[in-house]
């Protein structure tokens, strides 16, 4: 009984994207691949996909750069402080997602202190003032902000498990601080980086709220396209096609990441 009670909700949410969408796409357009042809016929859609990938890649890389020092520091801190430091990472991410985006609207707004500082600096060099809000820059920074904890946590979990004796051994063998990091810590932390990257990359790819609120008219991503098809123009078959494309992208990336993040030998 437990088994059946579980399977229903599991299939309900889990397989719905795979079951229903192709079905829908076919039913509405009378079993054609028209919508798929349409997707590839117009370069705009492919371009949006590529752009979304670019945003996701940039976000992931910057998240790794920001998360690594912090995760390393927490992992090297005395045990009693670790939970507190992790808690401090998680706390802001527990506040509402929209609020965190809204905060950046205030910071990047045309009247904000940051805008004033940057623009007066630019004026000093005789460069025309820039608007920070409603730009790709705003989208990227909010993406990083929202997803950073997803990178810090898996990285920390990984780094924390490292055997400190390995570092001592490396030092005994004459490795300097940088070599110790590059040859001992970094290779061991790769599974953590890959699982963190998956947690950042995938949601960024499907995000629509951030470009919607902080981006300009040209900064749309896959998520915005899908949203518009379903709630705007109501072209459901095409919306489904886009969703299928996104699902495929996500599945292949998940496969890729889990292959990379698989436990490797003795470092597992």
């Amino acid at each position, binding site marked *: 009984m*437990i088994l059946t*009670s*579980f*399977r229903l*909700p*599991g299939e*309900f*949410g*889990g*397989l*719905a*994207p795979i079951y*229903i*969408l192709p079905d*829908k796409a076919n039913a509405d357009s009378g079993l054609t691949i028209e919508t798929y042809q349409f997707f590839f016929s117009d370069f705009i859609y492919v371009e949006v996909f590529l752009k979304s990938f670019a945003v996701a890649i940039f976000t992931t890389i910057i998240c790794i750069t*920001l998360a690594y*020092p*912090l995760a*390393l*520091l*927490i992992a*090297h801190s005395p045990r009693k402080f670790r939970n507190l430091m992790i808690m401090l*990472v998680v*706390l*802001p991410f*527990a*506040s*509402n*997602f*929209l*609020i*965190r985006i*809204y*905060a950046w*609207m*205030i*910071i990047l*707004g045309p*009247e*904000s202190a940051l805008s004033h500082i940057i623009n007066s600096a630019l004026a000093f060099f005789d460069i025309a003032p820039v608007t920070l809000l409603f730009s790709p820059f705003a989208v990227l920074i909010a993406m990083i*902000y929202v997803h*950073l904890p997803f990178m810090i946590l898996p990285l920390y979990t990984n780094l924390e498990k490292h055997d400190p004796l390995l570092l001592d051994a490396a030092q005994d063998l004459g490795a300097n601080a940088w070599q110790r990091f590059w040859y001992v810590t970094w290779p061991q932390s790769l599974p953590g980086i890959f699982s963190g990257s998956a947690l950042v990359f*995938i*949601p960024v*790819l*499907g*995000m*629509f*709220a951030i470009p919607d*609120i902080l981006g300009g008219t040209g900064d749309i991503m896959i998520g915005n396209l*899908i*949203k518009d098809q*379903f*709630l705007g123009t109501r072209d*459901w078959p095409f919306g*489904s096609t886009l*969703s299928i494309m*996104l*699902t495929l992208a*996500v599945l292949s990336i998940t496969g890729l990441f889990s292959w990379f993040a698989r436990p490797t030998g003795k470092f597992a």
Partner: protein
Amino acid sequence: MQRRMTLLWIASILVYTFLYIPLIIVVIFSFNNSKLNAEWVGFTLHWYQTLFHNHEMLLAARNSLIIAISASTLATLLGTMAGLAIHRYKLKILPILAFTPVAMPEILLGVSLLLFFLQVLNLTLGMFSIIIAHTTFCIGFVAIIVRARLQGMDDLIFEAARDLGATPWQTFYHITLPLIRPAIIAGALMSFTLSIDDFVITFFTKGVGEPILPIQIYTMIKVAITPEVNAVSTLLMLLTLTLIFVATRFDTSVLRSESK
């Protein structure tokens, strides 16, 4: 070594600053006596007052609470069962089925639920559909937590109960349930937080009619920004903080009983 640690500290403090500054700014400006979120003019509680006279907003808050309570109750019930099932029957497919909604981008779940409600169930979108949708994505989280708790325990304890003549139901009620209770509570609190915060899935399954809190905030941000948004945000943050505080209280009590 020492210099390296200093560098790490500086980098880390910068990251912490990056994480906190935006939220602090939102809170500060909620008390600002100006229509613009630009510079500090003076202290006021005006925005909180307007907020409490905003009928639409109060209705939205009430609706969101109803949804969050129903969805987290349902999700806790089903998620606990799912966690137990995953632990008991070591089928590879079970965890995949339960955890997929957690790993997919929210928008895909939102779209497929929208199609599912309208095409398969012929449901009118509204509070009910939102509750179902929220339950769906919360189940996975509860299942993960419950399963993690079960994995850390010795299965022999259940066999011992059966040996002593307990019926399956008695075993569950007297042994399993008390043992996984912290996980259930944590799962319930997490579902509640997820549900009350969720924007994307609500956005797709809301239909027209009843105002819902995150949607209301979204509209305010998109249409007219007033520090009222800051006031709502601050109150929501307080709520989440309280919940997290409660959750950690439960957590530490768990740790303590284990270390005995």
